[in-house]
């Protein structure tokens, strides 16, 4: 790995150009604007390794740990260019979740053991938080870890674990103590999925793709050294990792992409000749434009070294609902063709628009990452200061 230039000392424009030029040459064309939202590690392994060789796999980790050490402003540029060039989402729970958690709260041994293996792709992580009985109410989680000598013994079940069937490690939230205050008594554990007693069962989603899973734990032994931070105080740890990255839950890339697809479909089907459609399209276009402005307003806070408040949730709500409205408009433009499950042909050159793929995909972001109802609840209390019942 080469020594890095100081990216943070560059102007945003300068960094943008360097990043874009290299990525555009090096990210394989067949991986651009992939149909699949969450490709598996194997599908994008070449790109993952190329990024790591360049030292660009991990934008925010400190340079000492093999990251780029970008500040929030440069990180935004990184994410924007990534989306603009249509790079595929890489299995990023190691880079985005386990890594930052260990960097902040892990022991030196844990950092030395796990961080390099995330970068090489030897460890592929998944996020084991949600349970059948603990979704929006995550603190009610019941998967249990009981101390036994140098180990913990884990019993219980996780669900909706994205790409668990393609991962070999899981970042697990477990209950170590039953307590009246439910946030107390939760612990973060690093668990190898090949451990005896772990069973992973993929679940088909609305697109009939297997991209999330159930993960069962039956008397699984996990060494006590795999506890991150202190026992029983994992809730605060888990909540702390998001930080400035909460802004990306509202990054306009999904609706932006969907709108380009809608435009192509509408041109091909002659919908722009219809004044009613033009008017609806104009609204969607300006909603997207205004989402950009709102995103900028929060990005500016970060650029000036500030921290985000609870109000940033507004981006996630608007963004996910805009994505839905755009894909719903696609179904209207499709007319009778909305009956097809496969992609709709456009033009004479074999092009196609994945209307149904996008429509079904757009159902998810309003649910995950804290559902839009939960986000509205946060805004009501933390921003408007409204009373609880």
């Amino acid at each position, binding site marked *: 790995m080469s020594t890095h230039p100081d990216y943070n000392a560059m102007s945003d424009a300068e960094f943008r150009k360097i990043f874009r030029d290299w990525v555009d040459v090096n990210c394989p064309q067949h991986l651009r604007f992939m149909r699949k939202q969450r490709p598996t590690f194997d599908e994008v392994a070449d790109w993952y390794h190329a990024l790591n060789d360049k030292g660009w796999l991990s934008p925010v980790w400190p340079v000492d740990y093999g990251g780029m050490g970008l500040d929030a402003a440069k990180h935004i540029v990184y994410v924007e260019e990534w989306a603009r060039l249509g790079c595929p989402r890489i299995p990023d729970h190691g880079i985005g979740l386990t890594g930052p958690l260990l960097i902040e709260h892990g022991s030196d041994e844990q950092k030395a053991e796990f961080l390099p293996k995330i970068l090489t792709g030897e460890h592929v992580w998944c996020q084991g938080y949600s349970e059948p009985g603990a*979704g*929006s109410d995550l603190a009610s989680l019941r998967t249990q870890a009981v101390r036994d000598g140098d180990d913990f013994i884990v019993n219980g079940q996780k669900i909706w674990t994205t790409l668990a069937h393609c991962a070999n490690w899981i970042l697990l939230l477990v209950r170590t103590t039953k307590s009246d205050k439910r946030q107390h008594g939760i612990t973060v554990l690093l668990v190898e999925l090949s451990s005896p007693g772990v069973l992973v069962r993929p679940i088909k989603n*609305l697109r009939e793709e297997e991209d999330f899973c159930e993960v069962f734990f039956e008397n699984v032994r996990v060494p006590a050294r795999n506890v991150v931070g202190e026992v029983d105080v994992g809730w605060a740890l888990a909540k702390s990792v998001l930080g400035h990255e909460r802004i990306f839950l509202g990054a306009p890339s999904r609706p932006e992409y969907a709108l380009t697809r809608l435009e192509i479909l509408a041109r091909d089907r002659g919908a722009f000749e219809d004044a009613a459609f033009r008017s609806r399209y104009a609204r969607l276009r300006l909603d997207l434009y205004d989402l950009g402005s709102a995103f900028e307003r929060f990005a500016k806070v970060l650029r000036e070294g500030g921290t985000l408040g609870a109000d940033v949730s507004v981006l996630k709500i608007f963004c996910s609902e805009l994505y839905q409205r755009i894909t719903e408009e696609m179904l209207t433009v499709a007319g009778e063709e909305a*009956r*097809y499950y496969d992609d709709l042909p456009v033009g004479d050159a074999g092009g196609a628009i994945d209307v149904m793929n996008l429509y079904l995909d757009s159902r998810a972001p309003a*649910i995950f990452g804290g559902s839009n109802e939960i986000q509205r609840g946060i805004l009501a209390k933390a921003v408007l200061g409204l009373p609880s019942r």
Partner: protein
Amino acid sequence: MPKIILDDPDQTLSMLRESVETLATRVDGAARLRRRRADGGDLDRDLWSEMAAAGWLGLLLPEDMGGSALGPAELAVLAEGLGRNLLTEPFAALAVLPGQILSAIGTPAAATIAQGLADGSRITPLLWQDAQGARAPLTLAGNGEAMTLSGTAHFVTAAASATDLLVLSERDGVPALVVLPARNGPAGSGGITVSSRPGLDGATIGQVTLSDVAVAQDQILAQGTAVETALQAAIQITRFALAAELAGVGAKALEDTVAYTRDRVQFGQSIASFQVIQHRLVDMWSDAEFACSAVTNAVEMLTEDTPAAAAQAVLAAKARAGDSAVTITRRAIHLHGAMGFTDECNIGLFNKRAITLNAMLGQSEDLRLEFLAQEMATKSTAA
């Protein structure tokens, strides 16, 4: 809970309702849909035969065509029941649409085909739509002994299972309804090519290309304005059946979501106890109510034999029921959380079925515009 409310003096409607529910206790609609989808099929012939045996396929047909000679009220109740139970065999597109055309034509040849349709022995889709669902250019050329049929039809229901193809063609600008055996004719007589694409509701959708298929005089079932009149009337009654089915889809998705959110506990309480969820459910219920009353209104208008009013009522019902079912089922997915995003949970199938039925024979906006155009036309003649 919302349902299509109709006068039922001699209990035929409630008996019909019951017979759909009885079938649905034996036949798991969602499971059949998934099986058909996995097989890449376009029709579940066993289930279709059961529907024939129950007298449903010929519900509207006159008795001398093997039908039960029932009317819009019975049709609404049956279609609603199919929608509620996710019995997704193509009742509207494959029983109602071709059946109504055949019965309107009414010749002995048409009656024979209609009888086969009613008893389930003949699968007779109508070929008439292009790639976007508009009228397809299907051309009948030549005269007397030397006639051929050419063109491509899209959105052909049960194309691979078909025994006969009803082709809505044109000869020199005059409509002609032609029946073809679905398999290739004698060698050298040109061919029929069938391909298919996956449909959202788990049934494949056919494309049929006819290349100089030989046609004999007795294969022309009807010509001229009679064909056009039959088609328009059949489209209207099919849209009506779709509206009733959509009303059933929406109402059942609402009921299932009420049940799910009642049972689902988060933060120590049923999520249905949160006011925002209650209000959302009430909006969905209201959508379902309006869909059902729009269909009831259409039943009345169709029964009263006031053609202009009936035409408007059907347009309104399909538009309302389509929007309502699509919106209810979309919200239902969201209220199921991640569970709603799975293929295992039936709520997604309701959404897919609603989108499919809504897209058939005109989406809501087109129907509303047609409604308005008819109303304007009536006003200007009155003035």
